[in-house]
């Protein structure tokens, strides 16, 4: 299959179909409405089902029901709608149900606006719902990367019986790029013998629940969840580094911002400033290794974000005091420009404090 020119939101949808997702429940919200519309058209073609839910709350609970039967299922939304899904996400984790949830982040708080943002970083990485839990969060920076990461997301979800979040910004959802839907070998995944599909032919009732009234019992269940999270931290870290080997300064950026920051980095290099870039792809588990490898050599890290400064906290934790950490960001739907980031680098490199 050759390359096709598509919009980001549609690539997310088509990649999910390629990953074997047959069920989608969602509620319209800008800037991810194309994703919902694409699924409405596409899923019936593969014998699947799209259903427009009455709200994001209903959508995530329909996902819970579909996942209870063992189906590959997905929902997507943007910030305000994603907020509404939090209770359902917490239940999915508690009941150990896999699902893929996409958040195409827009400006907030409140109704905010429909411009691109990354200001849901805290919410997606720290657990927007209640209880002790974590969810792997994958943040693609290009449309081709979406194809890979959506497949990974479904596999991770099934492997650990845990939801997985895809975090993009409005720019990623709206941009058009040529992509190729490569066929990957099917991953080896555990059989879903826990799914509630009726007891015919098996031992007895299967129960899917997050309730455990006994405190010791719940602590035990939580320890089991924590073991899974520890395994994810070990095996599901994804990141890329660019020119960090000789860097005096390292920019940290994810998603589409990383692309803008890369251009600024190259411009600064032309001007003789040795800048590198770390691009976290998994926002949780956050990649610590590229920081451990560089933190005793660089002068400073600069976290560049479309928020008022959220990932910068994880950067500080990873750097752990070995080097200073600065921040540059625009928020409210404003996209930082290459010139702004370049300017920030040059000021830091020139020792100018502002």
């Amino acid at each position, binding site marked *: 299959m050759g390359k096709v020119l598509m919009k980001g939101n549609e690539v997310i949808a088509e990649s999910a179909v390629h990953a074997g997702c047959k*069920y989608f*429940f969602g509620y319209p919200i800008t800037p991810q409405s194309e994703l919902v519309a694409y699924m409405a058209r596409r899923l019936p073609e593969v014998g699947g*089902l799209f*259903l427009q*839910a*009455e*709200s994001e*709350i*209903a*959508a995530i*609970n*329909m*996902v*819970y*029901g*579909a*996942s*209870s*039967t063992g*189906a590959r*299922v997905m929902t997507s939304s943007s910030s305000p709608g994603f907020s509404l899904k939090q*209770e*359902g996400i917490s*239940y999915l984790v508690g*009941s150990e149900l896999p699902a893929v949830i996409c958040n195409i982040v827009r400006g907030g708080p409140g109704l905010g606006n429909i411009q691109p943002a990354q200001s849901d970083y805290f919410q997606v990485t720290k657990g927007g719902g209640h209880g002790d839990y974590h969810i792997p969060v994958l943040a693609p920076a290009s449309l081709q990367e979406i194809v890979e990461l959506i497949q990974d997301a479904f596999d991770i979800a099934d492997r650990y019986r845990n939801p997985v979040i895809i975090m993009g910004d409005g720019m990623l959802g709206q941009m058009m790029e040529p992509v190729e839907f490569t066929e990957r070998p099917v991953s080896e995944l555990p059989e879903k013998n826990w799914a*509630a*599909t*009726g*007891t*015919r*032919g098996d031992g*007895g*009732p*299967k*129960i*899917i*629940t*997050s*309730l455990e009234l006994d405190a010791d019992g719940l602590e035990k269940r939580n320890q089991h969840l924590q073991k899974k999270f520890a395994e994810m931290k070990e095996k599901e870290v994804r990141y890329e580094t660019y020119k960090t080997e000789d860097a005096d300064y390292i920019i940290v950026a994810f998603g589409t911002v990383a692309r803008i920051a890369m251009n600024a980095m190259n411009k600064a290099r032309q001007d003789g400033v040795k800048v590198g870039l770390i691009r976290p792809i998994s926002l949780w588990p956050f990649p610590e290794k590229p920081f451990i490898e560089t933190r005793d050599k660089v002068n400073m890290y600069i976290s560049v974000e479309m928020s008022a400064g959220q990932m910068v906290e994880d950067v500080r934790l990873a750097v752990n005091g070995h080097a200073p950490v600065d921040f540059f960001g625009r928020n409210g739907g404003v996209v930082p420009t290459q010139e702004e980031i370049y300017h920030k680098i040059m000021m830091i490199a020139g020792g100018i404090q502002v």
Partner: protein
Amino acid sequence: MTMKTVFQKTKGLTDKPTHYCPGCTHGVIHRLVGEVLEEMDILEDTIGVASVGCSVLSYEYFNCDMTQAAHGRAPAVATGVKRVRPDRFVFTYQGDGDLASIGISEIIHAAARGEKITVIFVNNAIYGMTGGQMAPTTLIGQKTATTPFGRNENIQGSPIRVSEMLSTLDGTAYIERVSTHDVPNILKAKKAIRKAFETQKKGLGFSMVEVLSTCPTNWGLDPQESLEWVRENMVPVYPLGVYKNKEGGN
């Protein structure tokens, strides 16, 4: 001496002793559902959805596959299950706080979409699990933990009649309100539950049985008084009968 079995517990329920208070009719309703599933021979093809309320642990009592939904969201969860497995029987078991308050949106839309599920709606005019607060179905004048002076129409509004309301929606195929306050009514309740599952079997649309039920613990009455309270106070506000029967006949 050989003994003849004249009565035995339905296979529709597990052997687990229920946690319901003495005189609570949740247990009776469980038994009716279990008997219907057994008699229709669909236990192995059924997936139940437990809700949040006193019946949250119903997943331990019904002898079929079960999944447990967030408070009020059982109809959405059931939608997800049924849409993936249209060949299975899917039911929810929900209290009146769960269905008529926090989950009113989910039940209306599941009914409007004509989801081919069966809803067992237990109306006891109060929140049982959280200690006797007002439900949307609490009667005018009824004292609860959050209406200590009695429910006042001008402050808390008036009771929601869910069966009547949902029966206006075209997606609904069978809706009946029944009661558990005496044996003839319990027998009628069982017939209604059977009819609702038959409706699902035929794929006619959404089916719901609203069952008037007791909460002796939070009503502050003994079991016998509770049954009388249902007959005297609830039935006049919640008239029994069939509200929707798309198929006609009985």
